[in-house]
């Protein structure tokens, strides 16, 4: 048996011979619409939407200073909107259109050409699949903002995203999830986007933080989060939405969705507790920000493994991600001196790398994973590492190009005066709070 591939494998199977051991799809039968699958996937899609606005917006917004709150909310909302339009115009076609090679599909579905309300993707309407995928591209673009908040110009953020999506996101989504894609053909396991979403967003955020430079006063002035209450609300919305993200990646109301659901609970719970425990061991107090960070670390780490792990494997992943992300963020990052403001790299990229590589481990039947009798651990581990390395190189080069062009066009960074006064007034002419 081939390892279970996420929704991408199955989704792309529409119209083509159906892959893998899915009893519902007989080899030669025409795919038919399943109302249960469709209902779940519409719910999953809007759950992922809730992760962006308000989830991620509040999570990130609470972490910045009062004077920059509104700019973060505005950036997340605008970036997600831009990504949605670009997705239906040409992004979907580049990633999941017909034909294509190792790095991108084609433009034959640009402007949603040929897709009607009767078109199917597996057992769900193709428009539902398009929308589900659209939310992934939107949240990934919005996640990158975490590395560059409190100093990037609004115009620069939009230009960066407009370039970064076709340079980085669409090709990577195609490479990892689409039939014919480079990493997909290796047989790499990425159930719900450990590589495409989290390593991608985290590495891009780091590249952006380096090109943009540190915030004025970094490591000298107080830059404490202005509202951890909102960060907790955002964390809760992200966790809830993540059930759509992970369990939705089964692309139907199935046993695989149920497995992803339970894994998304327990990996997160383990990472929360172990992040706080690590804080304690490092000589600090167990903090709410630690709990929120641990939640994201666990959610990120379980993403590639959501359907490729048993619940005990998921707990293991949560523990490892909670401990290692905490150590990275608390001790290694301050020494690097890179102002990657909200730890998009420290949590999404580090957690994503841990999750992607350890997916080879959690697949093991001995750990309760869904690997079959012919599952070869060593070979899979090499494939996972290879996928991570290729993704990191692709993302680094692509996002460096996108940030550099944005810098040439807009200057990238706000003036010192605006940075000190706050981006809320300087960039948007309004405040988050009037009291």
């Amino acid at each position, binding site marked *: 048996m081939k390892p279970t591939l996420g929704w991408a494998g199955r989704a792309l199977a529409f119209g083509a011979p159906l892959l893998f051991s899915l009893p519902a799809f007989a080899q030669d039968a025409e795919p038919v619409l399943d109302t249960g699958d469709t209902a779940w996937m519409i719910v999953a899609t809007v759950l992922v939407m809730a992760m962006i606005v308000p989830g991620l917006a509040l999570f990130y917004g609470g972490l910045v200073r009062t004077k920059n709150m509104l700019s973060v909310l505005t950036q997340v909302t605008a970036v997600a909107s831009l990504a949605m339009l670009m997705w239906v115009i040409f992004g979907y076609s580049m990633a999941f259109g017909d034909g294509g090679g190792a790095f991108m599909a084609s433009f034959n579905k640009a402007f949603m050409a040929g897709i009607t309300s009767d078109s199917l993707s597996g057992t769900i309407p193709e428009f539902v699949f398009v929308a589900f995928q659209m939310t992934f591209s939107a949240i990934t673009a919005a996640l990158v903002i975490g590395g560059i908040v409190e100093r990037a110009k609004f115009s620069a953020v939009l230009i960066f995203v407009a370039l970064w999506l076709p340079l980085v996101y669409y090709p990577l989504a195609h490479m990892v999830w689409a039939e014919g894609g480079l990493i997909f053909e290796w047989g790499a396991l990425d159930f719900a986007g450990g590589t495409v979403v989290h390593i991608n967003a985290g590495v891009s955020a780091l590249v952006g933080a380096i090109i943009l430079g540190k915030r004025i006063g970094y*490591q000298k002035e*107080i*830059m*404490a*989060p202005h509202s951890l209450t909102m960060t907790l609300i955002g964390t809760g919305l992200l966790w809830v939405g993540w059930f759509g993200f992970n369990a939705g990646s089964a692309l139907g109301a199935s046993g695989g969705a149920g497995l992803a659901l339970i894994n998304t609970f327990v990996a997160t719970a383990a990472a929360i507790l172990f992040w706080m425990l690590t804080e304690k061991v490092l000589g*600090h*107090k167990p*903090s709410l*920000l*630690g709990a929120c*960070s641990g939640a994201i670390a666990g959610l990120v780490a379980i993403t590639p493994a959501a359907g490729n792990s048993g619940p005990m494997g998921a707990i293991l992943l949560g523990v490892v991600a909670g401990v290692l992300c905490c150590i990275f*963020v*608390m*001790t290694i*990052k*301050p020494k690097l001196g890179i102002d990657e403001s909200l*730890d998009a790299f*420290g949590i999404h990229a580090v957690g994503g790398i841990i999750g992607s590589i350890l997916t080879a481990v959690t697949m093991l039947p001995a750990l309760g994973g869904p690997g079959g009798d012919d599952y070869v651990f060593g070979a899979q581990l090499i494939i996972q590492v290879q996928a991570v390395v290729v993704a990191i190189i692709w993302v680094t080069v692509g996002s460096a190009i996108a940030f550099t062009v944005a810098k040439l066009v807009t200057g990238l960074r706000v003036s010192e005066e605006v940075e000190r006064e706050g981006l809320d007034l300087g960039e948007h002419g309004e405040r988050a709070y009037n009291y």
Partner: protein
Amino acid sequence: MKLIIAIIKPFKLDPVREALSDIGVQGLTVTEVKGYGRQKGHTEVYRGAEYSVNMVPKLKLEIVVADDLAPRVVETISAAAATGSIGDGKIFTLDVGGAVRIRTGETNRTAL
């Protein structure tokens, strides 16, 4: 008349207010303030970034009383606000030139 300004720990407001009522103080004004003395603030850690917070939150009480009551007020606040640990606060006494109750037009002692 004397103006007594007391900087105290926020959680000591209720005991101080009760003790002052017991000795016949009619009213006081409270302001949330920040500052530092020998206490020098504290440290907060957010994801590994340590911030030393130099300004500590305190409450400032302002009380105007007749000259003869002033020493008792100072004594009372001093007793009620004390914990014995660093950062308990300070009390200042100033002379007041005049007072008016706006509603009635009463002045000085009768206005208190």
